[in-house]
């Protein structure tokens, strides 16, 4: 397939981008009318009541980024302790809490929420809609995420944070070995966060089914949509496992039940099964959308469509399907019969195939494209490299024999950081450089951006590559210190230096963001000359996204002429107007035919109220205040009744407003 004849200058951006008109029309009279319909309450109240997916998306990202920084500071503290043998900077108790909160923060409070933020922001723009299917639920999932994050940190200042690792194995996490409130915070906190994940996921699923522009059939969806959809469906099926496990643990610890107590007929391994039935799909849920970000953004900087769209999209789904059948590979060393282990080992090898397809698709895209060495491109190319390295160490641990040697060593720590930072953090930072112009209307300065990338990439490899060697020589993970005679001192010092260099990269990144916000070049609607729908409008987009809902005819609406695609062209200047109140178009789930007019809710304080009621409820459960819990439940009920309040005068149907 042809590459895009590029009219981009060498810095990779359109020269007169500030003055170009967006492809999607927004005539002033319509704009004023729609602006008036879609505007939200200003001020402090509006801050709490907004239901705009763009605001919520950016909030998700900022909150998740703050958690990333917090988790990073925890990691740096640990690296100070581990920089030399026999150090006494931290006590073992403090160290346990730090590595547990580091894991919980990064995996639960950063990795998925960051991607949910991107998807929240991008989905309606990519799908040609005006908002998500359930705007108030969208606000709710954000407030619940924030509240659950605060809850998980509630005991941190008291020195009683969760200390059982992010997967919190029993019996270590039981009352006998962990009598404090630490693990109760973990168990209740994950149930709490699970509610946020569930409502968010349901919203994505229904949004995909109902909120597409006419003509946006499933073979035209951007890969990020495939990634987030797959992750969301998986979350609906996986999150209940960990919520149940945490409920059982909390009951075991507080009400003497016997789910995990051997003396009472319980099974400690039941925790591991339930946790990893959730945990492994979750690992894919936090990488597939990030891979989607790359699959959509990388080709823009290679000036050609993605190679192998269909295999990559199918591979995304296929990965998740197998992802539900590999959980036992986290439990290879737990004494399960060899036949079962062999099956799960085989499945773990198979799951590398769709990932390899994606990797080859990206490499082919780079190889056959006309690469612009922009900052996003650097991050995406770095990501491909790190993904390969993390993937190779993953294949090693999929082997039973090797895993028995490597499990619970620093080799696994190296592997999981290559995978999670490689496939989540690097794409996310690259995607911020790519979509920052859309979100703010300004470009991020490239020069500092290159320095940022170089610092992060070198720091990352310096920090995590030597861990492979440490693991092979037998250094166990989660140890608070090690003796000088083990010979691990030098490697650990290098790791710690690398960690601080990596952190410096984040300082530069923050500076870069500040630079961009203050005096970045004006971006215009489509600074990268990209093909997808979100670039068809002004940057930042208007409140209502599309004044006229487009009619989509291909996978690359803004490249159709230059790709010489045969057949229809995407229509921007004619289509559904829908300005009879705050409304948008709903389509039939499969064929995407216009089916209904959806009246969108006004901004509302109900979501934040519901989140506060739940926060009070979980705090009451934590400290066993039955009365307070009862009051919170009552408040919850009142909010829900108001939420579902029937409309006093429902309308059957409405005449369609078109722009043509």
């Amino acid at each position, binding site marked *: 397939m042809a590459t895009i004849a590029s009219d981009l200058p060498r810095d990779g951006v359109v020269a007169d981008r500030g003055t170009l008109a967006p492809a999607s*029309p927004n005539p002033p009279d*319509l704009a004023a009318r729609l602006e008036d319909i879609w505007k939200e309450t200003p001020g402090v109240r509006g801050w709490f009541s907004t239901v705009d997916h763009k605001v919520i998306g950016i909030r998700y990202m900022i909150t998740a980024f703050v958690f990333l920084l917090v988790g990073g500071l925890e990691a740096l503290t640990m690296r100070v302790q581990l920089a030399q043998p026999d150090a006494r900077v931290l006590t073992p108790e403090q160290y346990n809490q730090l590595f547990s909160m580091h894991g919980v923060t990064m995996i639960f409070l950063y990795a998925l929420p960051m991607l949910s933020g991107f998807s929240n922001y991008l989905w309606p723009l990519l799908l040609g809609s005006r908002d998500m*299917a*359930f705007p108030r639920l969208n606000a709710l999932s954000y407030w619940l995420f924030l509240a659950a994050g605060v809850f998980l940190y509630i005991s941190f200042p008291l020195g009683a944070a969760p200390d059982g690792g992010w997967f919190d194995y029993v019996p270590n996490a039981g009352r006998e070995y962990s009598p404090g409130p630490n693990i109760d915070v973990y168990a209740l906190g994950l149930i709490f966060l699970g509610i946020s994940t569930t409502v968010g*996921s*349901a919203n994505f*699923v*229904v949004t995909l*089914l*109902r909120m597409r522009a006419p003509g946006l059939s499933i073979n035209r969806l951007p890969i990020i949509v495939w990634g987030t959809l797959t992750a969301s469906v998986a979350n*609906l*099926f996986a*999150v*209940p*496992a960990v919520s*149940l496990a945490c*409920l*059982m643990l909390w*009951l075991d610890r507080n*009400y*003497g*039940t*016997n*789910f995990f*107590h051997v003396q*009472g*007929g*319980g*099974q400690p*391994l*039941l925790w591991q099964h*339930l946790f990893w*039935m959730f945990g492994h799909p979750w690992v894919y849920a936090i990488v597939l959308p990030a891979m989607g970000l790359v699959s959509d953004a990388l080709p823009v900087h290679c000036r050609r469509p993605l190679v192998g769209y269909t295999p990559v999209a199918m591979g995304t789904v296929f990965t998740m399907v197998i992802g539900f059948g590999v959980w036992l590979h986290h439990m290879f060393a737990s004494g399960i019969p060899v036949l079962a282990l062999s099956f799960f080992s085989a499945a773990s090898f198979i799951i590398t195939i769709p990932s390899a397809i994606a990797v080859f698709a990206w490499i082919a895209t780079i190889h056959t494209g006309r690469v612009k060495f922009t900052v996003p491109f650097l991050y995406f190319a770095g990501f491909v490299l790190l993904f390969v390295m993390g993937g190779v160490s993953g294949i090693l641990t999929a082997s039973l024999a090797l895993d028995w040697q490597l499990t619970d060593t620093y080799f696994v720590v190296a592997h999981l950081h290559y995978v999670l930072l490689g496939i989540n953090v690097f794409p996310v930072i690259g995607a911020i450089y790519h979509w920052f112009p859309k979100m703010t209307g300004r470009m991020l300065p490239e020069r500092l951006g290159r320095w940022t990338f170089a610092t992060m990439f070198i720091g990352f490899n310096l920090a995590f590559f030597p861990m492979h060697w440490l693991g092979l020589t037998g250094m166990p993970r989660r140890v608070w210190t090690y003796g000088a005679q083990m010979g691990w001192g030098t490697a650990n010092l290098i790791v710690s230096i690398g960690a601080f260099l990596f952190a410096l990269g984040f300082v530069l990144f923050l500076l870069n963001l500040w630079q961009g916000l203050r005096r970045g070049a004006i971006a215009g609607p489509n600074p990268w000359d990209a093909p997808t729908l979100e670039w068809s409008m002004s940057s930042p987009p208007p409140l209502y996204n599309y004044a006229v809902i487009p009619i989509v005819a291909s996978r690359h609406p803004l490249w159709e002429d230059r790709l010489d695609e045969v057949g229809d062209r995407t229509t921007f*200047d*004619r289509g559904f107007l829908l*300005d009879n109140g705050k409304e948008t178009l*709903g389509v039939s*789930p499969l064929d995407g035919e*216009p*089916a*209904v*007019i*959806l*009246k969108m809710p006004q901004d509302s304080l109900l979501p934040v109220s519901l989140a506060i009621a739940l926060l009070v409820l979980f705090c009451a459960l934590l400290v066993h205040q039955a009365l307070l819990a009862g009051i919170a439940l009552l408040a919850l009920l009142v909010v829900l*009744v108001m939420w*579902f309040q*029937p*409309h*006093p*005068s*429902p309308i*059957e*149907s*409405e*005449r*369609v*407003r*078109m*722009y*043509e």
Partner: protein
Amino acid sequence: MSEARTLDATLPVHGQGRIGTPWWGMLCLIATEGILFAYLIFAYAYLGSQGAGDWPPGGAPALKLALPATVLLVGSSFVLEWGKRAARAGRLAHSRWAVGITLLMGAAFAALEFREWTNKPFSLSSDSYGSIYFLLTGTHLAHVVIGLIGLAVMFAWGLAGKLGQGHEQHRALITLYWHFVDVVWLFVFVTVYLSPRLT
């Protein structure tokens, strides 16, 4: 020059049943709650199959209360479905009756279940069977209670004249949820009461 025009053609607003978005949201809720019961039943089977000793420890539980409770709960689904269809045909009073009767039948189920709980010689904390028995049936009972609260609110709205014929979506959603609660009970019933009789 393009301009805004109003067509003669109309589209439904929100739409009822399957063409409305809430219907799909409820299906997502049912999917995730349904899988929660699958994990609960997995835990029941895991604890039963991996432990030593009898499972259930005192033999299969009696059907004396559970069987009538099952009939009541499943029967209530039919009543509510009839009520939903009555409302669609314009018979709102019949629909209110159906909601009221469903409420009573559901409450009777909860009462029978509660009675059975108090009769049990074991407790939540006595052994792993007690723990999973109460957690499994308790999770289900919690879903019944949530459904009952929803039905009670619907009933009150109906009496206050807030639910008209145009509010089919409200009736459709609560009916769908109630069907789910009833169907999932059949799985719980088979697991707790029937599966021990198979061995």
